[in-house]
């Protein structure tokens, strides 16, 4: 079971990086894509197959899928589609390009990857990383919309693939990866309450790999703060 192959998108930083580190640390085989070049990966990045590509273009997403298929020899145990971006600003402050880029990365790339990786995922798991923002976060309407769409997509696919492959949409609560600040949100007192990326990665990986679980899961304070790994090794997570 330890030679399970795990594929992560957006593995060069943020939650994706923690997912890569964690899965690798647990002894799984891991491969990932990221937007940053190899030279910009952290020094302690594990020695695993890495593809640098921009998933917000259709060609990029197709290239990533083909690369993953090639690397995996046609069998992926778990795909964690995590790469995403968005802006903390009103709809009127967006641009036509930012609208289509966010939708392309957060929704279309994942549809393309699911479509192409479908045969390799037989008997495996497709985990789509959503966000609690999908409920309609007023501060980031386009991001919320894209994550809502990912949710509708994942739930439909979960039912279609049931019995053949497992599909789960996992919706994290706020994580201290700096994404919120990069999205343009002014840091305030609430930032101190953001969840640690490592603890979130534990919960996300466990939720993705669990034999049983709902198609749609929220992974926020309740689950992250009371995760066994955190309770056992205080400070480590």
């Amino acid at each position, binding site marked *: 079971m330890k030679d399970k192959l795990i594929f992560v998108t957006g593995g060069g930083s943020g939650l994706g990086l923690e997912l890569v580190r964690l899965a690798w640390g647990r002894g799984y085989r891991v491969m990932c894509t990221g937007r940053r070049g190899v030279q910009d990966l952290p020094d302690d990045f594990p020695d695993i197959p890495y593809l640098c590509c921009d998933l917000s273009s*259709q060609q990029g997403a197709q290239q990533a899928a083909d690369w993953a298929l090639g690397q995996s020899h046609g069998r992926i145990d778990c795909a964690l589609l995590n790469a995403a971006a968005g802006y903390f600003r*009103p*709809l*009127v402050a*967006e641009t*036509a390009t930012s*609208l*289509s880029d966010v*939708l392309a990365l957060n*929704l*279309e790339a994942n*549809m*393309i990857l*699911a*479509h192409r990786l*479908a045969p390799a995922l037989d008997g495996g798991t497709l985990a789509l990383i959503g966000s609690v923002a*999908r*409920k*309609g*976060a*007023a501060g*980031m*309407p*386009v991001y*919320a*919309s*894209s*994550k*809502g*769409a*990912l*949710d*509708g*997509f994942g*739930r*439909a*696919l*979960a*039912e*279609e693939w*049931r019995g053949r492959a497992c599909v789960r949409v996992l919706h994290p609560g706020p994580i201290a990866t700096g994404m919120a600040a990069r999205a343009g949100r002014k840091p305030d007192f609430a930032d101190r309450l953001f969840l640690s990326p490592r603890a979130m990665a534990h919960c996300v990986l466990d939720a993705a790999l669990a034999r049983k679980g*709902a*198609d*749609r899961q929220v992974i926020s304070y309740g689950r992250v703060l009371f995760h066994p790994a955190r309770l056992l090794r205080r400070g480590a997570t």
Partner: protein
Amino acid sequence: MGRVLITGGSSGLGKALVDLCVERGLAPVCVLDIDPAPDAGDGKLDWVFHDMADQEAAPWAALSETLQKKGPFDLVILNAGINATGRFEGIPLATHLSVARVNLLGPLRLVHMLLHAGLLAPGGRLVLISSLSVFTGYPGAASYAASKDGLASLARALRKPLRKSGNISVQLVCPGPMDTPHAARHAPEGARADRRIDPARVARQILELPHGRFVLLPGPGAKLAAVAGALFPQIMMRIMGKVLFARLK
């Protein structure tokens, strides 16, 4: 109520909405569509050719200019949409991507443009036609379900900011199967047309929706299914799998 803008007016719910608006003297109704204008327009319809899935900047800029001469609009109904049914992997990627673009990216761009150009009249209504699938799930139409959930999240996110900035009421309509050519094309084999709700009835409910209401589930069937789906999402999804997806294959 003053000026009306509707996307997708040549068939189904969109046509019912256009007809009802004309009947109620809300003409000229501005319609965005990719089909040619119907003959019997006689000045009651202001038909504008526009492809919601257009990726280029120029057609959107041209549309903005055109609409600035006709707006601002008191009632905007984002109705245009397409579907693709079958096994997700069995449908070409290009089809899935156009569903996402017509049903979700297009509306995002249009609302963005309307806000930018100040074409949503204060006190008006912005109505997004989503689907009952938001509550029940829709296996066998993965990209369609995605787009409709995306619209629902968008409506929820825009609701407060638009109410605050211009007392614009954002409204989410989640119809179940309607008796339209669209439904007939995508219903599973053996589905009964007489169980589907009449689009004219849905159109009436939309036009009469009070300013303060957020969600419209037209008809008792949709209301029941939505409540069941909200309470027991997993069970509802399995039922949809059995009655819908299994029969699509």
